[in-house]
């Protein structure tokens, strides 16, 4: 069965600095999708970025980028120029044929 591991329960960063959140996963599949979702205090899950496993190029969305290492089964999220509004729980997720399998999340605090 596929599993997703986020080994950092909490991270903190100063405003305008860069932070990297780690995620590893386990699968025997070769074609799959990976996602980072953000869950602010409002509890709504918001898509941050996604990566298709067959693409070697790392996905980028404005200040958010990923470092996807398929052989190592690693999928980290880099947030550049951190803003106070980035404070939230961040979940890494692996997409099977249908359902999402989530990691346990990393709580990101942003300090002014």
């Amino acid at each position: 069965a596929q599993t997703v591991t986020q080994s950092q329960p909490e991270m903190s960063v100063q405003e305008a600095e860069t932070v990297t959140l780690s995620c590893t996963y386990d699968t025997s599949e070769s074609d799959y999708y990976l996602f980072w979702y953000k869950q602010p205090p409002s509890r709504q899950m918001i898509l941050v970025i996604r990566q298709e496993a067959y693409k070697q190029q790392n996905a980028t969305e404005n200040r958010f980028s990923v470092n996807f290492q398929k052989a190592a089964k690693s999928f980290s999220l880099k947030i550049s120029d951190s803003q106070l509004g980035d404070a939230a729980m961040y979940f890494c997720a692996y997409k099977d044929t249908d359902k999402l399998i989530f990691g346990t999340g990393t709580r990101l605090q942003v300090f002014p």
Partner: protein
Amino acid sequence: EAGVTQSPTHLIKTRGQQVTLRCSPISGHTSVYWYQQALGLGLQFLLWYDEGEERNRGNFPPRFSGRQFPNYSSELNVNALELEDSALYLCASSPSTSLRRETQYFGPGTRLLVL
């Protein structure tokens, strides 16, 4: 474009009661997913509906059930509520999952408290 909507936002029930949660997907999306986010247990997949049919369910007892209507909205029913059913229930939608690449977009959730 309106996002995924869920109702109600909050709900308080007592043990043994039954509850129905509702979800309306993004217009054009035919797949609806339900997830449970319980304290200490993370996000767990509950159910997947597509084109009116239940396609898959997670490791939950049969008292968790649901359905999808012709307009693709969905209900999640939980019978014989137990204290551990207290959680945030999240609904997500996506276009047809005939393609694996489809992203799931989430609603704001329904917070259920069982006393």
